[in-house]
């Protein structure tokens, strides 16, 4: 049995008296595309925030590539290979698109304590950044100010930034949120191409995308994992259908 | 160092603390509810003092002067809010800092133009002149005790207002999340104006009460403003309770520190170095205290922000 890339043990998070993460134990295996689905308010984004380090859990452990990262800040986790995209595009609107991605490359490419030299001109950073932009299909917008991109282009930039980090584990928080049919298909195609090359956790509401992509699915209801299994298992599970999928599949 | 001297300095510390609370309360509320850095709060304190002196010159009665000065200070504060501050709530902190700094410059020099640079005085009201005997024949000015008492009364009333009335609840809610309160249909503009006006009155009241004891001069609000900032930062922005505790703490630490620093240091070093280092360490004391508190709790002792 290979070591899981990510292991969550007994994760718990309360906001006041509201239990948002209720004793979650989960393994994500190397190379897998693991989807997390569930109704709104199930605690999916809070879970992603705990994994990426933006919110500390109240109880439980997070093990990433075998190491206990529960106490590590997000930047430390990022440098170990944990990358994420945000549900609401979190980019640097004042910077050109290329620099947004180049910064992600810069974080792991030599020291950033360099006070001289124009960072924007560095080929060592720009070339890998361009590659990521080509992968996500927005290379032609490389020199545009990121704040001027369309919503769909911003989602693509989100993904490009996450990919440029050459992550071991990629957390995708609703990458298809708010984008049209065509762009969704493009994203799905891209993710299919990436499958196997990296481990991914996909939080999504778009069920077509989930079932096209996922190797395994975990269903989150009210902060608890109801079931983890292969797509067909999950699709057929009566509890899941009753609590969530029934409405989704209408 | 005698027991009575210590008692006197404790009382002085309480008096300073109460004064700081009156100023800090308005500052922390405005900050907490409106996220507005008001550097001009110190000149509102100064204005209260000047207005009290001015009205006293006209009516010759302290109580009347106090009421008139309070009303005038309130009016001026609301004018500032309407003309200037209202447009800055949505701006970033840098803009607020610069604008309120400009108001400090303006008012510090405006009072100089109107009243001259020489310090002014206000006599203690007749009923409260004189001293009271503490222990061992040590005398203590009655007026200082009046300040302490009035400050405590205001603190208690403020606490009651904020905890038990509807408007107080709105203020507390606003301090945690103003946008939410607005979204719930509360007239946030009016709430802001009330909070601001109240804070202005408290600062003005502090200025009026302290005027009989210190000299009223341009720039008198500057140093106490900094102390008030230290208070609200330690207490937690938006928290009246925090402001109260921190104000008393700062008042006591600063006063006792200044009085006894040389004596305490003399226990550890010779009299000459103690006399040199004492005042320096005394002035540093509250800032070191603030640094320690913020290191352990970067949002103060009683943070209210839910945003």
């Amino acid at each position, binding site marked *: 049995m290979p070591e899981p890339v990510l292991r969550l043990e007994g994760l718990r998070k309360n906001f006041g008296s509201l239990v948002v993460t209720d004793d979650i134990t989960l393994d994500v295996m190397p190379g897998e595309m693991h989807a997390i689905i569930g109704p709104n308010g199930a605690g999916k984004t809070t879970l992603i925030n705990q994994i990426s380090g933006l919110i500390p859990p109240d109880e439980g452990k997070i093990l990433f590539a075998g190491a206990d990262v529960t106490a590590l*800040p997000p930047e430390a986790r990022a440098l170990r290979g944990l990358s994420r995209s945000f549900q609401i595009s*979190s*980019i*640097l609107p*004042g910077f050109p698109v290329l620099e947004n991605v180049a910064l992600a490359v810069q974080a792991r490419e030599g020291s950033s304590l360099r006070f001289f*030299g124009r960072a924007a001109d560095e080929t060592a950073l720009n070339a890998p950044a361009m590659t990521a932009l080509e992968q996500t299909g927005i290379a032609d*917008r490389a020199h545009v100010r990121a704040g001027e991109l369309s919503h769909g282009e911003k989602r693509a930039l989100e993904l490009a930034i996450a990919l440029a980090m050459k992550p071991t584990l990629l957390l995708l928080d609703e990458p298809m949120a708010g984008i049209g049919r065509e762009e969704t298909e493009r994203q799905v195609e891209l993710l299919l191409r990436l499958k196997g090359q990296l481990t991914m956790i996909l939080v999504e509401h778009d069920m077509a995308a989930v079932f096209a992509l996922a190797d395994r699915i975990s269903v989150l209801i009210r902060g608890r994992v109801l079931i983890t299994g292969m797509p067909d298992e999950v699709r057929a599970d009566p509890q899941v259908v009753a609590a969530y999928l029934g409405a989704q599949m209408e | 160092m005698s027991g009575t001297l210590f008692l006197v300095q404790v009382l002085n510390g309480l008096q300073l603390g109460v004064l700081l609370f009156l100023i800090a309360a308005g500052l922390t509320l405005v900050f907490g509810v409106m996220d507005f850095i008001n550097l001009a709060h110190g000149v509102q304190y100064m204005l209260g003092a000047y207005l009290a002196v001015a009205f006293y010159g006209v009516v010759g009665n302290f109580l009347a002067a106090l009421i008139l000065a309070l009303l005038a200070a309130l009016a001026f504060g609301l004018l500032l809010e309407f003309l200037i501050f209202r447009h800055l709530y949505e701006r970033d902190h840098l803009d607020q800092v610069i604008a309120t700094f400009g108001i400090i410059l303006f008012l510090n020099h405006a009072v100089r133009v109107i009243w001259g640079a020489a310090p002014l005085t206000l006599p203690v009201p007749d009923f409260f002149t004189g001293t009271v005997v503490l222990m061992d024949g040590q005398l203590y000015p009655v007026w200082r005790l009046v300040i302490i008492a009035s400050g405590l009364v205001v603190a208690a009333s403020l606490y009651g207002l904020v905890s038990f009335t509807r408007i107080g609840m709105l203020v507390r809610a606003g301090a945690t999340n103003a946008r939410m309160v607005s979204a719930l249909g509360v007239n946030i503009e009016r709430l802001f104006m009330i909070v601001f006006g109240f804070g202005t009155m408290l600062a003005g009241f502090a200025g009026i009460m302290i005027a009989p004891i210190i000299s009223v001069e341009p720039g008198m609000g500057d140093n106490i403003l900094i102390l008030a900032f230290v208070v609200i930062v330690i207490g937690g922005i938006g928290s009246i309770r925090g402001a109260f505790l921190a104000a008393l703490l700062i008042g006591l630490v600063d006063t006792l520190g200044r009085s006894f620093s040389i004596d305490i240091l003399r226990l550890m070093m010779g009299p000459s170095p103690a006399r040199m280092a004492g005042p320096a360490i005394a002035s540093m004391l509250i800032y070191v205290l603030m640094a320690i508190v913020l290191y352990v709790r970067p949002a103060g002792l009683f943070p209210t922000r839910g945003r």
Partner: protein
Amino acid sequence: MSGAPLAAPGKPRALRPTRDVVLPILMFLVFALLPLFALLTAKQYLLDIGARMMVFAVAAVALDLLVGYAGLISFGHAAFVGLGAYAVGILSAHGVDDALISLPVAIVVSMLFAWLTGVVCLRTKGAYFIMITLAFGQMVYFIATSLAPYGGDNGLTIAARNTIVGWPLLKSDRAFYYFTLLCLLATYLFCRALVVSRFGRVLRGTRENATRMATIGFDARRFQLFAYVIAGGLGGFSGFLLANLTEFVSPAYMSWQQSGELIVMVILGGVGTLDGAIIGSAAYLLAEEWLSGFTENWKVIFGPILVLIVLFARGGLIGIASRLWRRSGHA
């Protein structure tokens, strides 16, 4: 403000010749030629005002680094200036008056103070940060006022300007003026390089979206601390120059009002431009000279001007000039 807007979509960012090259050259040319002008018009005091402008400009440029690029509103910047000045003053009082010692000491002391206080300050955010920097500035101010052997409240006169390797090269006002000009130029070029460097880019990125930068792998606080220490050191540099210019040090150099004035200088010129800091210092000191000719209480006029600038003229003098430039038909 992270830099120039882009020339056109699809094209890499071009240098805006007017703003990025012509303006700074013009500024420094004016400063370089001022002594000549002073000589020709027999207005020697211009030399003094010009030197003052440049000395404060060094501090203001450093502050712009923090405020305009790192997004850290430091209201205690004058403390670094004061520390640098007092380093010169105290060393001089003990007979050490060579710049070879005084300058490094001034810079190191300010950097040390910046590092120690920065570690605490940077744990706070937003308004807390502003106020804690303010309070630390006050702390230094009060320490200075209580330094009885070094003048306390009244300040300390310095016997003479620093020598350079034993030679009194700074004695002549004109020599000192050009020395200061070189120092300002060096500071300006250093900061210009810094903001486009890798380090500067991280700093600017952190200002724009700290969460994103963290999830990319950048520890915001580490970079901010570096910036704070660098700015502190440059502030100390400015203090070294100030002490030599006036041959006097006083606690007033580090009052919070002085910190406020430094922020005003940055805003007046245009925050986040570096050029603005220099222009703002010049404009502020010019306004002080001119307006105080009318009345001692010139701040009664200047205060409302500040409020008006905040309300209506964001971007300061450079912002106003840019808008006029664009409106007159230029790109």
